[in-house]
């Protein structure tokens, strides 16, 4: 039996088109101790994402048609979320020569990105933008001036000054974006900017869009909710005051400080200031930001259970996106429809694809649950939300009309009941 969205009427649940994540690190091949395509695709479903774009910074990187097809096949075999491969912009992600973009696109690559590294060479990046038109796919660039962020482990500001940690200034992202926008204009090509995180970045994109540059951008749930104060041990959401006024009973209002220097707060781009978070919400509201993408970055404990400076960058995001974003909605920072559009039609537009007509997600927005390693389908649990009670949970995810994830305790259907199987 096919999914019947009217079956959930009157429960106060959210029924939405399935979410599309433009940015997930699935770690396979090469880092299977952190995540596999299968575990990542299952984590995606539990987070409401019925389509995920797998980033190519694997080992070896996804820079050949064979590697693209392998990701597609493993994604199909996982029988969970749809897995769309992102292929490298440059061969080996080395930033020296272009990958075979037309062939990669023909094999099924939906975007190009050297994510984790920017394409530093401006001439090569211009070529990539121009050549991407022949491939008919968009370039998703990771905007970062590597010289300005050298040795950096967190956002540069008052918090990094107090902690004695090397900072990554907002300007390192903004100056890279300024270059990328100029080159997109020059190339007359579409450009997508991954994980914008600063007020200045949002403003640059806003102006470029007004100037007619064919640019889109994404923001992560953690950059919409957490701040650099988290590195110093705070566990207050950036909008905790609005949230506690709007709903004093919300579980994320209850916050006790964590340990400073927690490696799970280390992410690139780094957690920014509350003012940056506000600017990201404003960008989401006015359409400057097209999509919410998780930048799900799982890491095995060996890379995170270390001192902050030695830790890998990254936060897992697929399964915690819904509660963080719903908290923002509860705090009045955006309408629910705005957030849902940024999780569905927004990213689909970036990909130049239609939304899958029979992909759906059902969310119980009142359901409270605690983020623990055991609760997460991801193989990794490197999130600073670990141990926190949150509100809002996916109870069903449907792919191509088939229910691929269901929390039967919630939906009330029994496993022997064929109607919802």
């Amino acid at each position: 039996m096919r999914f019947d969205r009217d079956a959930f009427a009157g429960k106060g649940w959210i029924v939405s088109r399935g979410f599309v994540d433009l940015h997930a690190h699935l770690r396979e091949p090469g880092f299977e101790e952190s995540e596999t395509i299968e575990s990542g695709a299952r984590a995606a479903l539990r987070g409401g994402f019925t389509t995920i774009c797998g980033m190519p910074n694997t080992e070896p990187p996804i820079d050949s048609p064979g590697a693209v097809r392998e990701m597609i096949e493993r994604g199909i075999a996982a029988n969970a979320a749809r897995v769309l491969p992102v292929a490298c912009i440059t061969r080996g992600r080395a930033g020296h020569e272009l990958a075979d973009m037309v062939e990669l696109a023909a094999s099924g690559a939906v975007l190009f990105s050297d994510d984790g590294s920017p394409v530093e060479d401006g001439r090569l990046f211009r070529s990539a933008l121009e050549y991407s038109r022949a491939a008919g796919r968009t370039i998703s660039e990771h905007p970062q001036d590597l010289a300005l962020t050298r040795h950096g482990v967190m956002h540069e500001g008052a918090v990094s000054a107090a902690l004695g940690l090397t900072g990554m200034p907002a300007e390192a992202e903004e100056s890279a974006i300024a270059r990328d926008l100029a080159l997109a204009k020059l190339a007359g090509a579409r450009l997508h900017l991954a994980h914008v995180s600063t007020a200045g970045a949002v403003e640059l994109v806003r102006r470029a869009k007004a100037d007619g540059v064919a640019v889109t951008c994404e923001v992560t749930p953690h950059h919409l909710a957490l701040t650099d104060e988290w590195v110093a041990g705070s566990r207050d959401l950036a909008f905790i005051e609005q949230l506690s006024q709007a709903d004093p009973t919300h579980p994320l209002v209850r916050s006790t400080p964590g340990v400073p220097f927690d490696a799970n707060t280390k992410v690139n781009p780094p957690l920014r200031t509350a003012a940056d978070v506000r600017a990201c919400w404003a960008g989401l509201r006015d359409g400057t930001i097209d999509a919410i993408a998780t930048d799900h970055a799982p890491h095995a404990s060996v890379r995170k259970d270390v001192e902050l400076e030695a830790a890998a960058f990254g936060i897992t995001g697929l399964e915690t996106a819904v509660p963080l974003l719903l908290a923002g909605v509860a705090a009045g920072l955006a309408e629910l429809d705005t957030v849902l559009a940024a999780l569905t039609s927004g990213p689909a537009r970036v990909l130049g694809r239609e939304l899958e007509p029979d992909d759906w997600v059902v969310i119980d927005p009142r359901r409270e649950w605690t983020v623990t390693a055991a609760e997460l389908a991801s193989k990794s649990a490197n999130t600073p939300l670990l141990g926190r009670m949150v509100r809002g949970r996916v109870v069903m995810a449907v792919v191509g009309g088939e229910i691929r994830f269901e929390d039967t305790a919630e939906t009330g259907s029994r496993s022997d009941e064929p109607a919802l199987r």
Partner: protein
Amino acid sequence: MTTWTRRHVLSTEDWSRAEIETVLENAHAMAEVLSRPVRRAPALHGRTVILFFAEVSTRTRVSFELAAKALSADVVNITATGSSVEKGETLLDTVRTLQALGGDVVVMRHSAAGAPYFVAERTDAAVINAGDGAHAHPSQGLLDAYTLRAKLGDLEGKRIVIVGDVLHSRVARSDIHTLAPLGAEITLSGPPTLMPAAWRCGSLPERVRYEPDVDRALDGADAVIALRLQRERAEAGLLPSLREYARVWGITEARVARMRPEAPVLHPGPMNEGIEIDAAVAHGPRSLIERQVTNGVAIRMALLYLLAGTPAS
């Protein structure tokens, strides 16, 4: 005397004035022990203090070792060169070893800011941070406060100038977080490239200001603390040359003369004489640098006693 509830000494940033005073008062009693013919008290008899130094240090390690021995503790050294730290052993491995060894106190130095928090979370021992990256060096901040109080009396309203590489200095941070709660007004001076941008641009901690002109910073000051300048800062493009640094920010006799009469000069050591401080100043009448070293033992005894000592019967 104020009650003491801390399990670890990781940074004085979140300490109350009363907690700082408690350490200083205890250090005073410890200084008395150190002045006796037999410099030994039984307060830590039967306790084990592990000195875990994953970054080279002689002064601080020896100071803690003397402090622990003066309190009759058993002392075990784990240094970077003598252990597996250099063979790629992770900090977590080391923590497990420390836990298995069963020390009562771990005194640790590490190049990574925050490493003592990592250890404190994962062991039953009390942890004393003896310097973590550019973050904190609380016993240095406390011994500087002790040394300045002995010379200047109450620090309320006293103008203390910290000169040098504040950006990379755990000493500067701990001095700020110890002296400011005691009422001192702190002026930071030094090259703009060696000052955290946020502090240069006005979002400074309470009771702290930035004055790039060291002469103006020193005019009428009550004390100056010169910071060690790492020679590699010039190579990293943060300074034109050490020679220029010495001329523009070095603590010379002429600069010392700008302060109030008898205003003292401190330095956490080891010094680069002729760069951040002139030899004539370092060994001159205003210098409290050797006093800092002596007081350091008393401060460290106080910390060990407060964390692990059994009250004298």
